[in-house]
């Protein structure tokens, strides 16, 4: 591997790491902000202290998350320029405005009101405070909207034309923003954020219930989490299926890689479901394949014998790394079905009135605390590694998208980022675990409760 290949690979790895950390924090922000909005809404409506206790409990955790999330997000904004300069120059007229809008419409909304939300409970009336919580929750969803629109445009570019010097120029902003894969990506990711957070909250509740099944705070946490999983889990499977259909239309190589399909089977055989395989990029086939016939056709083409374009129908230079995409997809779908299954099981158990006493359910949810976020990360690996070798699909290759920065610089930034992120996020995770392990109690205090008392005339 020569220096420029190594530089490209390191730049890609660095981007993957920075965005991997950030997306989990962003998803927690979206999930928790909306959960907090629900809790505060319930408190204002039902006037029960237990909702405000839970609100303040999770508000402290939200405060931790916002601090680290902002920091990681800042890096993303600038990383397009530091490491992907050519992509920025060539596609900046299109993805730049989308990211600008994210800051303007969404991030500012969150950042502007989060101060009141975290520290202003005693400073402003309940209506203004609830408005602040809602602003933060809606801001987080607006953020997802714009970032995913920009990301989706890279996968399914639309509404553009070329300038005389070969840059992407916008022609129709509505077509750009609502490009073909955007709606599917937006829904799939929003569900993922809610599902991931639901398992995190559910696991916290389960942990408390295992020690004391009568704890009212734990019961409400767990119940709200399980409702979310029961509703969103199955919907996510449907959303994923529709997203996959859309991907098949616009990025067939990605779906072929997800399936590990090197050669199209004869029509009557249909696509198999490959439970396991070791893809071989040099020989362009799989080893040790374990497959069930026809099942693949059911979810890929909704028929018994439909087939998809296979990897060998494309030039080798146009297909993504197969093994990573193949295994990440299996992991994501496996976790997805497991989560949906837990959701449905919880409904049955709830109907029998045993939701707070069924220990195996609590243990399972506790073990599955990171399941939603793991599935989400796997999904992002599928879609982003599956987008290779392109940055703008079919139009601009990753190898042509990087900045003219030398290997020594990228190596140094890569190592520094790993060091700082592991250290900072590690400490954050420890504080998070400590905060979650404490039992929420009556008269729970918010983050920095003295701040409101000590500030002001």
């Amino acid at each position: 591997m020569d220096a420029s290949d190594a530089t490209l690979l390191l730049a890609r790895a660095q981007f993957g790491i920075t965005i991997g950390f950030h997306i989990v924090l962003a998803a927690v922000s979206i999930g928790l902000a909306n959960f907090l909005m629900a809790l505060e809404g319930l408190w204002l409506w039902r006037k029960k202290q237990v909702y405000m206790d839970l609100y303040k409990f999770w508000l402290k955790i939200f405060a931790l998350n916002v601090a680290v999330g902002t920091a990681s997000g800042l890096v993303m904004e600038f990383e397009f320029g530091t490491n992907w300069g050519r992509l920025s120059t060539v596609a900046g007229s299109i993805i730049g405005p989308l990211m600008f809008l994210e800051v303007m419409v969404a991030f500012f909304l969150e950042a502007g009101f989060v101060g009141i939300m975290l520290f202003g409970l005693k400073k402003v009336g309940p209506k203004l405070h609830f408005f602040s919580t809602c602003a933060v929750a809606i801001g987080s969803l607006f953020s997802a909207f714009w970032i995913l629109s920009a990301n989706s445009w890279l996968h399914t570019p639309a509404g553009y034309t070329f300038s005389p010097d070969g840059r992407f120029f916008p022609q129709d902003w509505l077509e750009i923003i609502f490009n073909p894969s955007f709606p599917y990506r937006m829904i799939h990711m929003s569900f993922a954020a809610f599902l991931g957070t639901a398992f995190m909250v559910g696991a916290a509740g389960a942990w408390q219930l295992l020690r004391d099944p009568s704890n009212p705070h734990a019961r409400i946490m767990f119940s709200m989490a399980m409702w979310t999983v029961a509703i969103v889990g199955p919907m996510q499977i449907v959303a994923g299926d529709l997203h996959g259909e859309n991907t098949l239309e616009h990025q067939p190589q990605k779906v072929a890689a997800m399936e590990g399909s090197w050669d199209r089977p004869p029509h009557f055989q249909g696509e198999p479901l490959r439970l396991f395989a070791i893809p071989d990029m040099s020989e362009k086939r799989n080893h040790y394949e374990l497959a069930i016939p026809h099942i693949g056709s059911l979810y890929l083409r909704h028929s018994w014998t439909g087939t998809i374009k296979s990897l060998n129908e494309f030039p080798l230079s146009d297909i993504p790394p197969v093994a990573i995409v193949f295994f990440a997809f299996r992991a994501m779908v496996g976790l997805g079905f497991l989560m949906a299954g837990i959701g449905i099981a919880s409904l049955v158990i709830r109907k029998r009135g045993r939701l707070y006493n069924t220990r195996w359910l609590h243990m399972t949810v506790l073990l599955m605390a990171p399941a939603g976020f793991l599935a989400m990360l796997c999904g992002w690996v599928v879609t982003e590694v599956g987008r290779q070798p392109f940055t703008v699909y079919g139009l601009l290759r990753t190898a042509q998208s990087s900045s003219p920065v030398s290997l020594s610089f990228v190596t140094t930034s890569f190592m520094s980022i790993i060091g700082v992120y592991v250290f900072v996020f590690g400490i954050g995770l420890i504080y998070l675990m400590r905060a979650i392990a404490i039992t929420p109690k009556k008269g729970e205090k918010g983050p920095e409760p003295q701040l409101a008392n000590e500030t002001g005339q």
Partner: protein
Amino acid sequence: MPLSDELIHVLAAGAVAFSILTYVILDGTDLGVGILFAVNRNARHRHVMAFSILPIWDGNETWLVLGGGGLLAMFPAAYSIFLSAMYAPIFLMLLSLIFRGVALEFRDRAETEKRQRWHDVAFMGGSLLATFFQGVVLGGLIQGIPHMDGQYRGGGWDWFSAFSIFCGLVLVAGYSLLGACWLYWRTTDDLHAKSRRQAKILAAIIPALLAVIVVWTLGLQTVHAQRWLTLPVGGPIIILFVCFTIWFWRSFNRKHHFLPLFAVLGWFITAYGAMILAMYPLIIPPSLTLPQASSARLSQVFMLGVFGILVPITLAYSTLGFWVFRGKIRAKERRQT
């Protein structure tokens, strides 16, 4: 009435410049408070200092994200060249900002006093280094960046020079002054008195440092700094600077404690304006102009529309955020950690 391309480019540049200036004013103050942790070691003082910026630092930092986003959207070639050229100091600044934000928010989770001091070191160090590297990046920009065909064309070390390091140090002094004036406004008793002393010391040396930068920039000949020597440009700059200086020194006798901060903000805005006047029409000295770096006209126009409508709204609710946490900060009895 169609607006000319040139006007659109200037307005677009104005939007980016406004975002960066707002960032410098707002987060410069927060960073200054962090830097002052180095000289304010008392635990109660630090507690008050941290509380003064906790509710607002996140929103303040967002203006930097807006500036970066605006640059990408409206001048993508400049964004790419600038960030590739400033690779090392930008990453160092970003990592420092991570330490600053996380240390500040995690401060009160520290279970022992010794651990809290480590958080304070991270907070102070992060603030100091973030400021320093912002100054270095500014100096690196002024001294020029080699580029060709919309791509950076240097070895990666062009930013590293005596000039850029000096700019970094001056910005540290400048943000510290903002921080000291902020604390003079927001605190009472001994911290209020200490901040007044610190502000006066910094304000005494900064004009000299700025004069050095002016002379040095003239010598670099990468920007149109000679405009400062002309009467229509240099005249107003000097008059404004002198007015704010007089206002600053007289403001300490007044009832309103926000006056010194506003005088220093006047300095910052004047200096920023002077720099822009020296740079126009360049966006990357010495040779990349606004038209050359611009994105599609449709992108710039769209962004200007969004900016024009949303920035006033953003300023309004940000002001609300500030207003909710207004007033002096008085630490209640010593907290147990």
